[in-house]
């Protein structure tokens, strides 16, 4: 589903965010992307959505070389991805419902169908009762869930989440992780970046670990657990 072939990314200020990164994520697979801040996690996710372009190597999504996509084709790539941004990127000039509605408006959905989908998405993240609220009035955990609702309302086959549990306490973080797991169970491909090792505790999922832009290990959580034992 997602393939990186010797991908390197150097920013214009000379910072080398990724060095020769190669890995493959299969359809329906759920993986965590770990590493300290600055290890290149965000950059890697941005390359998948073609928000950034690699200097060398290629990024394939659904067998499509996104690193070579023309900018006119980018919108259609992004409509197949659900992205949960590190800084949420919620719009504070509209209520919860309209925030989730935006992706459907962009895709040109029928209004009635859109309303149904928005409510379904809000229900999934437990925000259905807050649909009229302003995002600013939501707690950190609720804002994060709103962000997830917006990412999934389009029913994408791939979900990318950048530090979705970043500023949340353990309880909230676990809640968010449970939501992700439920998507995993229905066949969505997930790539979740986190620097919080806590959430990985007892999960038997794959971990891709980055250190200074290089892949340290790309094994399953199970093997990692066995190695450390």
């Amino acid at each position, binding site marked *: 589903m997602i393939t990186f072939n010797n991908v390197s990314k150097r920013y214009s200020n000379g910072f080398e965010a990724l060095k020769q990164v190669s890995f493959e994520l299969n359809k329906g697979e759920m993986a965590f992307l770990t590493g300290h801040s600055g290890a290149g996690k965000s950059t890697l996710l941005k390359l998948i959505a073609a928000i950034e372009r690699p200097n060398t190597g290629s990024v394939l999504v659904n067998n499509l070389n996104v690193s070579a996509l023309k900018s*006119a084709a980018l*919108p259609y790539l992004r409509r197949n991805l659900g992205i949960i941004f590190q800084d949420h990127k919620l719009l504070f000039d509209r209520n919860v419902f309209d925030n989730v509605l935006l992706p459907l408006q962009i895709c*040109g959905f029928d209004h009635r169908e859109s309303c149904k989908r928005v409510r379904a998405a809000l229900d999934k993240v437990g925000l259905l009762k807050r649909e009229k609220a302003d995002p600013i009035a939501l707690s950190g955990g609720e804002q994060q869930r709103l962000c997830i609702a917006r990412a999934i309302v389009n029913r994408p086959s791939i979900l990318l989440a950048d530090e979705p549990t970043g500023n949340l306490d353990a309880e909230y973080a676990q809640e968010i992780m449970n939501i992700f797991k439920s998507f995993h169970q229905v066949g969505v491909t997930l790539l979740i970046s986190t620097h919080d090792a806590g959430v990985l505790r007892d999960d038997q999922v794959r971990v891709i670990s980055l250190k200074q832009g290089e892949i340290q290990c790309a094994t399953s959580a199970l093997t990692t657990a066995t190695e450390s034992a």
Partner: protein
Amino acid sequence: MMHLLTQSLTTLLTAFRRIFASPVAGFLNILVIGIALSLPTGMYVLLQNAQGLVAQMSGAPQISLFLSMDAAQEDVNKLRRQLGQHEGVANAEFISRALALEKLKESTGLEDVISGLGNNPLPDAYIITPKQTDAKSLDELRNALQRLPAVEHAQLDSSWAYKMEALLEFARVAVLILASLLSLALIAITFNTIRLQILTQDDEIQVSKLIGATDGFIRRPFLYFGAVQGLLGGIAAWLIIATSLLLLKAPLATLSQLYASNFTLQPLSLTDTLSLLLFSVYLGWLGAWLSVGRHLSRIAH
């Protein structure tokens, strides 16, 4: 198709809402556009009216040929033949000096004075109706006729109308220049309004792009806003002109009565009104398009 229509309608409503969201600023913008458009359009209306007036007063051009006082009957006959053969002459009407005197008596009522003159001071004359009525051929014909023997003076009766026509042509170009400059101003106004709007909606634009909005989707509401603002500006211009014409009506009626004319100002025709509105919509749209285009090219990701 149906869906596209409802989406366009929603966007259009949003455009109206945005204009009325800040009523004072919106009103001022529309007023500025209205004034900018009403200046050249108003001058255009005056020009159209002046042109109508000139056409009404000049009628078909004629050339009066006055023969010299000492022209003999023989010369007159010879001239008649020459005029009959001249290719530029459609018709030549002979007015003898006696007939001319009679007409003068009738039309002026100066019978006593003229009777007291003793001998007739008027020359024989021909009234020529030319075939070609454009300024150049008229002038050429007049010069040709002037050179004929026994002709003392050839006068182009409507030459003042042609001078007026030339003056109007001058004014037309001036209006065109003014219109072009003020159109640029209108584009600039829209450009700036949209730029300010984009700044307040930068978050929405960025997020929309990140979750799959095409440039067209982002551009559309701004284009509609520019077009709607242009349309309202065009309507304002029309109202300004209509009001001005209404105010000018009474003084003009008095003036025209003094000149024993029944001249009235014609308002903008339906075609001109539609052109004005379409043009203002287009300029607003263009200003918005340039503004959004510039912004989109800056956020390339």
